[in-house]
């Protein structure tokens, strides 16, 4: 299962809601304002390190660049739109 999260982790509970239902090993895809969850050194970075141990966490390169985020946390995989398409091909998706 692929869970799409597009909200800022600082303002919305969307990611935490999704994690209540997603089973370990499922994929979480961060895009739009959701990409801020992958930025190192933030107030949610510790939480995201833990999340990245239990889930496969991806983040959309194009949305990172648009926002000037040039580094992502260890354990989170950068993926472009082509990779996003592959993930959707391989999984059912839920949009949070």
């Amino acid at each position, binding site marked *: 299962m692929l869970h799409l999260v597009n909200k800022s982790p600082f303002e919305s509970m969307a990611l935490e809601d999704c994690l209540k239902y997603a089973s370990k090993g499922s994929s979480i895809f961060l895009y739009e304002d959701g990409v801020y969850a992958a930025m190192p050194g933030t107030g949610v970075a510790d939480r995201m390190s833990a999340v990245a141990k239990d889930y496969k966490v991806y983040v959309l390169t194009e949305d990172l660049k648009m*926002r000037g985020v040039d580094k992502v946390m260890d354990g989170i995989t950068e993926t472009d739109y082509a990779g996003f398409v592959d993930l959707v091909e391989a999984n059912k998706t839920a949009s949070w």
Partner: protein
Amino acid sequence: MSEETAKLMVVFRTAPYGAIYSFEGLENVLIMGAYDQDVSVLFIDDGVLAIKKGMDNSGTGIKDFSPTFRALEAYDIEKIYIDRASMESRGLTLEDLVIEPEIIEADAVEKMMEEQKNFFMF
């Protein structure tokens, strides 16, 4: 400043691009600048992300409006503030920003709002 100018403020509190608020907030600041009022600009919460350096829209095609923030001085808008805790919890320092706002603490925010004739939040 003459007695006829009004104190006006625009508060940026949402992240850029996911929603258009911060872009329309910037349009608003620029218009205020043209009216020769006593304009302040304040970045709090996710609004601090709107002035992050290094934005590159080549993969999204969305208009990158961050360079326009650098033009605020040209419009004589010099009262620009940022909330320290909002900046720090997003892992940012002044070096990461396209402009250099004055850092304030959270308890100064409400007071700053009270001092305005009117203000807008975006």
